[in-house]
């Protein structure tokens, strides 16, 4: 449970932005890991896009370089 008292002071934008960057990086990593797992399980890009709430084109453009680990060298 996040303690709301520990959230960055709204009057300190520098700390707020530092938290946003860290959260964005964390979210990107989590998203890529989930997409890799979905592709390994045979999910289509349509299904991945629906689960992420974006269009298939947007999902493919941003995440098509996620390695599944099954690529032939």
């Amino acid at each position, binding site marked *: 449970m996040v303690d709301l008292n520990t959230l960055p002071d709204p009057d300190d934008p520098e700390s707020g932005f530092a938290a946003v960057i860290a959260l964005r990086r964390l979210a990107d990593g989590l998203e890529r890991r989930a997409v890799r797992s979905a592709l390994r399980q045979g999910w289509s890009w349509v299904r991945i896009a629906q689960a992420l709430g974006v269009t298939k084109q947007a999902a493919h453009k941003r995440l098509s370089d*996620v390695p599944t680990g099954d690529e032939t060298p």
Partner: protein
Amino acid sequence: MFSSIKARFQNIGTIKALCEGAERHAREDGQRDAGAEHFLLAAFDLPDGTARRAFAAIGADSAGLRPAIERQYADGLKLVGLDPTLSDVFAAPAPPKQKLYDAAPSGQAVMQALAAERVGHRPLLGAHVVDVVAGMPHGVAARALRVMGIDAAALQAAALNIIREKQAS
């Protein structure tokens, strides 16, 4: 005349090394596009050694930059009450890009600043990158320098001194 042409060709090689180095550092950092902090790390790798010298001139250790960048992510998570070690959990290296070279906005700002000052680059040095990045007041690079206890203005002055010395020799 000849020295100006020579410098121009040298600069092309340096820009290529900088861009490729910044992209490599960004990928190692789990990011797809290089930011100002990755250009600074790439400047340390340049053979002219002037970026590291600028840090040394103010008593700072350039090897401390990468840990300071990583600390930004951990500290950012801590600020919202999350476990700071989560920043390492998902930090897998990003795969190489297939598309044409692109940088994150802060990386683009570094390249634009270098391009704007290119006439004075005889040749382009790592210290020029230090000068540009140290002049950026916000962002991961600026915060990393602050975490290292670096006075950005002093670092800029040191970089400019080294550039002057190098160009006079």
